[in-house]
């Protein structure tokens, strides 16, 4: 077990995780860098239930290339991720800074994405919390997948269903509504309400 980081959730629970897991969050990474003696990082805006979900995600992503990585088709021997002898390809380098990887990395990320898609197949309330946490903690991959989860909830639903999902209020005035419906009718087929 490598060097660990202690995180304290908003409701006072302590989570001890490896650096590679915690440093998926750019915020935690920068806080850990500037902290001196204490390796305990408080996260008042994330409660323990959400933090544990976030850490589950980070654990899975700890040693993989980011889903944002550009994939060049270079052979794996030349990929900084695989080639142990490549100078400067240190393991502490953020995976999202890794701009060119090989097919093997691409395959690994695709597998990871499958896992992620299952991970975000949850109720919108949880997705909402994950989005907030990913935004607050600056975790690129979690943000990416939580956005996908929210987008997936919208796809194929009619406006009333979308309003219910996101707790939205129909705040159009009657005139606005008329105008929009007219605009909608020449934008697309009228939906069946």
């Amino acid at each position, binding site marked *: 077990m490598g060097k660990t980081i202690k995180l304290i959730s908003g409701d006072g629970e302590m989570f001890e995780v490896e650096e590679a897991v915690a440093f998926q969050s750019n915020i935690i990474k920068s806080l850990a860098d500037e902290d001196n003696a204490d390796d305990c990082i408080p996260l008042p805006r994330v409660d323990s239930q959400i933090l544990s979900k976030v850490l589950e995600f980070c654990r899975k992503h700890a040693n993989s290339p980011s889903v944002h990585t550009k994939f060049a088709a*270079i052979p794996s021997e030349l990929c900084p991720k695989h080639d142990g002898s490549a100078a400067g390809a240190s393991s502490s380098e953020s995976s999202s800074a890794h701009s060119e990887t090989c097919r093997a990395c691409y395959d690994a990320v695709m597998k990871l994405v499958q896992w992620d898609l299952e991970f975000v197949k949850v109720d919108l309330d949880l997705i909402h919390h994950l989005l907030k946490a990913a*935004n607050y903690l600056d975790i690129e991959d979690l943000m990416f997948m939580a*956005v996908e989860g929210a987008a997936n909830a919208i796809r194929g639903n*009619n406006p009333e269903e979308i309003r219910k999902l996101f707790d939205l209020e129909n705040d*159009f005035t009657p005139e606005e509504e008329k105008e929009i419906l007219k605009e909608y009718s020449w*934008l*697309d*087929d009228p939906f069946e309400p």
Partner: protein
Amino acid sequence: MGLEDFPSPILVDILSRVGDSTDLARCRLTCRTLRSLSYEARSIRLFCSRERALRSSVPGTVDLHPAFKSVVCNLASLLSSVHSPLSLSLAAERPDCVPAGEIDDGDELYFTDSPFLSRWIPLISARLQSLSIHDYWLQSCWRPSRALPLISIFCSELLNLEIRNAWLSVKELMPMQTLTSLNLNYIRLDDENLEKVNECFPSLQVLNLIDVGGLKEPKIQLLQLRTFTWTVSNFVVSLTVDAPKLVELKLTCVEPKAVHLQTPLLLNLDITIKKVEVIKVDKLHNLRVLRVESSQLGNLSQVFAESRTIKRLEMELYDPACVINTEQCSVSLSDTFPDIEELTIGEKAWFLLPQIVRIKGELVSLKKLVVHESTTELDGAIISSKLSILAHSHVCQVVMVIPATAPIEGRVCAISKCINDFPNIRWEYVTKEIK
């Protein structure tokens, strides 16, 4: 959980990911915030199914079912008031099968029609970073389109362009200095030697020319090109690739008279070519991965023999029926590719090993062997005898790719024979679905 908890940039992210124009239109009907943010979605896809197109062409229904092309124009006018970058994709449903010679003289799905494009592209051209048009072949195949010149005039800042299923003219095509990625798929191109392509797309880094017909002696000459996939399905007199920064090339052709590659930095080459009279390849100093599929495996291997840097090699036979004499397919691995570490043998080549495809010599560096079995009747003795050619190399790992339909008993038998005959090798079995 309310909308106020989501900052606008995140909502725009979500709407951009939703992407589909119908879903976005429904979001617009929900509340004010989503309505205004929907115009800022960075990526929008408009898809028209055949059924949708037919619905709006029924006379008298134009109010209920606006024509898809009007929908596109109306949406563009709404999007023009926003300034953030936009990726737009327009696609017609593909017909199930395209009977040869059949055409459709309708217009409702003819997206590369210049009058249609000139109605809406100028409205959003300042925003467009990426444009993709999948046209409807039955309506586009019989008339040349001025889509490319039009796009070049209006979208001078475009980064990515993709067009599928169209007949494209290049007359009066203007330079597009910022275009880094071009994808032409199933296109009849009136630029027989690709002169206009080279002249007007000088900054291309990624190029895909898949089933692009109308070419005679095409030559790609692009200084910034890094990745190139070229599938030539009809006859060409010659094929030339002159790309000093090219790193990856995948070339598939049938029987050109000549092929010329000036690609000194190439790392990864995948070449499928039935037969060729003349092939000239400028020395490849960095080539690491090579895949060759041909009826002239022997001759082609010689062409790449100088590249001592090749570490991974894959060989496959193009069309066993074309093989006239065994010398064509005889590869002396120890002479031609002495330093390879990994060797993959394709189905047809493996089947005809060692009679037609002969692999001579010992490979000192070879560590991993991958073979593709095509037959479902696995015979351990035959497999073993084929492998004995390579047994005296220092191979430590063999991966056998077996058809998924091969019966279990045959598999088990073959596997145990292999393990017995080659005890020092680590075996791995992968099943492959038959396409």
